């Protein structure tokens, strides 16, 4: 295992080393110690490596991740795994606002709670939150799936496009153009897969969830819907 002391060697040296990993590297197992809430830890990685961050992180940890599996043994600051392309990011603690924002692929697992705007503008990422999510989550979410084992805050899925939102607990309120939708076999299959990959299959069952999606009434402008904007 490659052990990297962020407190001693600094962020630039870490990310530079991780960016240098290409293709069939043998340096596949990394540990980052003393993160001390630094921003942009392991941002822009593009290699099939495993990285464990031992402690809590600042903004944008694992930003734009491709291929890597990044596990945060602590809590994550704002924008964890923002614009992730592929790979997996697992937060053992809580995540601050904008978790998984604009993510295009891969899997983000948050074992605690996620704050506001979780999954904002998501574009294909899958997100599994073991706890609750805050207000305005999945605002303008375009595609992908979010699974919430707990509750969702106000204005879930406001101005939603085609993302699928699965919530087991209560939803404080739905945002504009977001409605509850029928659960079909395909949705149970998605949930079964995501609960398993999100390390949550021992905590919840697919049939305990409700699905929310776009009513598609705001897709083309109509003056009679103006109050919804």
């Amino acid at each position, binding site marked *: 295992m490659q052990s990297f002391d962020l407190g001693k060697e600094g962020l630039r040296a870490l990310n530079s080393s991780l960016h240098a990993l290409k293709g069939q590297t043998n340096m596949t197992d990394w540990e980052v110690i003393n993160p001390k809430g630094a921003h942009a830890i392991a941002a822009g990685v593009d290699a099939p490596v495993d990285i464990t961050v031992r402690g809590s992180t600042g903004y944008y940890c694992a930003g734009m991740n491709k291929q890597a599996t990044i596990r945060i043994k602590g809590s994550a600051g704002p924008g964890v795994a923002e614009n992730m392309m592929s790979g997996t990011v697992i937060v053992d603690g809580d995540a601050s606002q904008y978790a998984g924002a604009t993510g295009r692929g891969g899997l983000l697992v948050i074992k605690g709670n996620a704050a506001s705007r979780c999954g904002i503008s998501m574009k294909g990422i899958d997100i599994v939150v073991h706890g609750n999510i805050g207000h305005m989550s999945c605002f303008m979410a375009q595609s992908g799936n979010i699974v919430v084992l707990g509750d969702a805050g106000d204005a879930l899925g406001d101005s939603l496009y085609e993302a699928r939102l699965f919530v087991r607990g209560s939803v404080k309120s739905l945002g504009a153009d977001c409605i509850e939708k029928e659960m079909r076999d395909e949705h149970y299959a998605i949930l079964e897969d995501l609960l398993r990959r999100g390390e949550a299959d021992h905590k919840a069952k697919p049939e305990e969830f409700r699905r929310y999606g776009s009513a598609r009434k705001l897709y083309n402008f109509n*003056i009679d819907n103006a109050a919804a904007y």
Partner: protein
Amino acid sequence: MSDFPHTPPRYSATFTPAINAEIRRAAASGIYDIRGGGTKRHLPHFDDLLFLGASISRYPLEGYREKCATDVWLGTRFAKKPIHLDIPVTIAGMSFGALSGPAKEALGRGASEAGTSTTTGDGGMTEEERGHSKTLVYQYLPSRYGMNPDDLRRADAIEVVVGQGAKPGGGGMLLGQKISDRVAMMRNLPKGIDQRSACRHPDWTGPDDLEIKIHEIREITDWEKPIYVKVGGARPYYDTALAVKAGADVVVLDGMQGGTAATQDVFIEHVGMPILACIPQAVKALQDLGMHRKVQLIVSGGIRTGADVAKAMALGADAVAIGTAALVALGDNDPNLEAEYQKLQTTADAYDDWHEGKDPAGITTQDPELFKRFDPVLGGRRLKNYLKVMTLEAQTIARACGKNHLHNLEPEDLCSLTIEAAAMAGVPLAGTSWIPGRNGGF
């Protein structure tokens, strides 16, 4: 009937025929007017400034014999690989989606031949543009359509877009007619919907967050790329200062004459400030911070000629950007297409319904039949010619003012024809030493 003469019909200065027509249109349609381009109202502009050529107190440079350099470095503050351009006229961000693929290709061809950069837009990076642009600036927008780390790394610079002059405080808009299969795929959207982009970035708010966001982008790109921050002309002193504080290498400042592909007319005409009023405030912010010429300033919004370029640079800009003018150079609004504009109930030089995707010139469209009309090689050549002419014009003026580089032009070379322009630009009214408001600050 009285035999006295009738009072002739008198139009209201408030309820003009144009205003009444808009009231009727709104009442009939139930939707605000959407159009492309920038403001069409008369504003104090570069036309209100004149250069004071050399005379006895200073001597001019010999035209065509004595050198007047035009190059510019952008991104010298932090980037490992700053950009060097031959000319200070760049191509502003315009999206694939708003423009056709061939039009983006033409922008790349023309700009590269002239020695300058092009910029992507709210729709991601296309191969047409990357392949034909020697220097390409990649926009980082609130929507993040098409955003990915591979394109970040193959860009030559990154422009974090906070706002634009046509709609400071507003988000993007691309109506369903232009959301083709390819545009929908690049933006992860259903085909044919009316796309309304967010007006704020999804994962940062305010200048402190922006600093952290810029830091993340620098880390992802290994500190190689210059990072620009683009703002609409609304509070240019503070926006420029905050962009510098956040770590920008370059500030891009877009006045309300700057165009858009599609926005509400009420937004275009009533929000923002003319670029003439913005430049001195931005320059003052840079000077107050000791960063003038260290953080470069690119200005845009109504740049049309080499005279405009020279005036913007005399006021303190390092470079300018053009959008609408570049489209006109490619062939947009060409009077040769008048018959087709008439079919669209408009006329050449007034056509602004770019959002409808019916552009007879084949530039602002996603209709394959229309963009077949547009030749990107010819379009690129026309753009190159235009850029070269603008540069020559600016050099001509700079030499007349005795300057051996466009960057040596200064406010002292200018006077103003109007009190308004004098106050905004901070140069004296012609024939006087009066700069209105100068003692009272901005």
